[in-house]
């Protein structure tokens, strides 16, 4: 058994990222994500990596993309207002297929809002924050240990699918300290970047070799000269005005994620075997849900929990299946109602859907959930 250590969520995010191979972090401080920058500043140079504090979040995002283009696993972290600013370049990374991890430790908005209060108000922004259509992978941890493990998975997914991965934390987990067992490093699966090993003349940088998911990447400087752009491009990496190529590109980007739903989408279902009522929740809200479920079961209510770990793509298959076996789903989230819209869309009329939203800076408690569970309309 690995050593158990006391760690904060934000710290676990950095330590996990280091294990996953992060060697460049570009950021700009903002509560409640700041510790991620601060710990990176301490830890990265110790591991031969680099931390840089950029002039703002736009630059941080751009810098992290640059690092990745040069072959180094890169990360950036922020909170709501900064996440808004990163969106334009997030679209760039999605289109140019640049692996990197973007952490958003959500805080209460809109605008400056309540900077130190917990929230899950950026869930839809994670999906729709930038212009145009592009694929999104986003993950949500609900404990310190899961933060550690899941950030490694975030890096792995970003490398496997050559796409930015969003790591949607909340203040509840980011600022929580709890014990976690450190894994044996040998046992951690780390996906290294699939790179071109030697320069190939006339190689098409966005051509996918047979049996591969995505084009292999050639880090700048390794000898394979090519072009990257945020314009619609063909396999050569050069801009094209061809409508066929445009469609092909967007289709390919979308499908590399949607076709691999089973690999990417994970959710946790607790007590769902016999549940009558399910709590749908994610991130830090899970902690109240699990206490509430225990209480409810003690009171004889068959309560279960459906928790997306991958929040984008939305786990619609699993949710629809689950919805068919319960009478009610209570969607609990720390916002005015975001993922509940997806639940409504997916579940349709399969079961009743209730919503418990919290948007006043406090945390949903087990009692809040119990009251909702007991509520009969």
């Amino acid at each position, binding site marked *: 058994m690995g050593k158990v250590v*006391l760690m904060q969520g934000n710290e676990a995010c950095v330590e996990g990222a280091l294990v996953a191979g992060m060697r460049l972090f570009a950021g700009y401080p903002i509560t409640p994500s700041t510790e991620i920058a601060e710990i990176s500043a301490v830890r990265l140079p110790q591991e031969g990596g680099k931390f840089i504090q950029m002039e703002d979040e736009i630059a941080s995002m751009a810098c992290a993309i640059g690092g990745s283009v040069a072959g180094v696993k890169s990360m950036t972290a922020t909170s709501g207002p900064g996440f808004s600013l990163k969106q334009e370049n997030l679209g760039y990374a999605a289109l140019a297929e640049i692996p990197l991890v973007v952490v958003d430790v959500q805080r209460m908005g809109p605008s400056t809002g309540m900077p130190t209060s917990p929230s899950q108000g950026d869930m839809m922004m994670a999906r729709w924050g930038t212009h145009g259509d592009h694929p999104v992978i986003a993950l949500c941890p609900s404990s310190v240990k899961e933060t550690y493990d899941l950030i490694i998975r975030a890096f792995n997914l970003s490398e496997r699918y050559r796409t930015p991965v969003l790591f949607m934390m909340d*203040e509840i987990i980011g600022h*929580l300290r*709890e014990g976690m067992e450190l894994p044996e490093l040998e046992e951690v699966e780390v996906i290294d970047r699939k790179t071109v090993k030697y320069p190939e003349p006339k190689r098409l940088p966005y051509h996918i070799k047979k049996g591969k998911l995505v084009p292999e990447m050639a880090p700048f400087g390794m000898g394979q000269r090519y072009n990257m752009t945020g314009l619609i491009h063909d396999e050569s990496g050069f801009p094209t005005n061809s409508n066929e190529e445009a469609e092909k590109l967007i289709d390919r980007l979308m499908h590399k994620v949607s076709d691999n739903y089973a690999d990417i989408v994970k959710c946790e279902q607790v007590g769902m075997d016999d549940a009558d009522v399910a709590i749908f929740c994610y991130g830090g809200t899970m902690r109240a849900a*699990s206490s509430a479920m*225990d209480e409810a079961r003690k009171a004889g209510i068959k309560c279960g929990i459906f928790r997306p770990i991958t929040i984008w793509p939305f786990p619609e298959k699993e949710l629809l299946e689950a919805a068919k076996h319960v009478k009610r789903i209570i969607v609990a989230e720390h916002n005015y109602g975001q993922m509940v819209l997806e639940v409504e869309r997916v579940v349709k009329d399969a079961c009743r859907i209730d919503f418990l939203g919290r948007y006043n800076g406090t945390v949903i*408690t087990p*009692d809040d959930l119990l009251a909702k569970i007991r509520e009969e309309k």
Partner: protein
Amino acid sequence: MSRQEIRLAGSGGQGIILATVILAEAAIQAGMNTAQSQAYGPEARGGSCKAETLISDQTIGFTKVQNPTFLMALTQKSLDQYGPEVSENCLVLIDSGLSAPQDMKAKRIVALPILDTARTVVGKIQTANIVAVGCINDLLGITDAKTLEKAVLMHVPSGTEQLNIKALEEGFKLAEGHEEK
């Protein structure tokens, strides 16, 4: 050990958060589960400040203290604010300089000269949080002295180890002969 919901309150600069972190660390070292968190806010800048640790041998679901089993307050302001919130059975530790507010329901109150001890016996007011940690461990029996000492050493800045160990020991001593009011 049954579930403890520990809340510490004081003013911004008193090292309240560190104290809860050390208690959480002690719990981990003692093989228990813990969840530590704090209220962030503009209060951190001068005003009153609160930090919490849950300790339990069970898995911890909800991570926030809901019904404190233990409260410590180091300033009158924070005692006035958080004191009335706790229930009858909560054990309350206050600095000897403070007086319990009228509307406090808690019955078990221990007053110890934490600040004074830090200032005069240890010689540095900043060590009050570690003195307090010593008292708290004694009152709640979280772990043994050795483990707690280890937890303290894991979290204080290098160069201050000696001083803090002294503070911890003074804390132990303080709590030894304590008396509930």
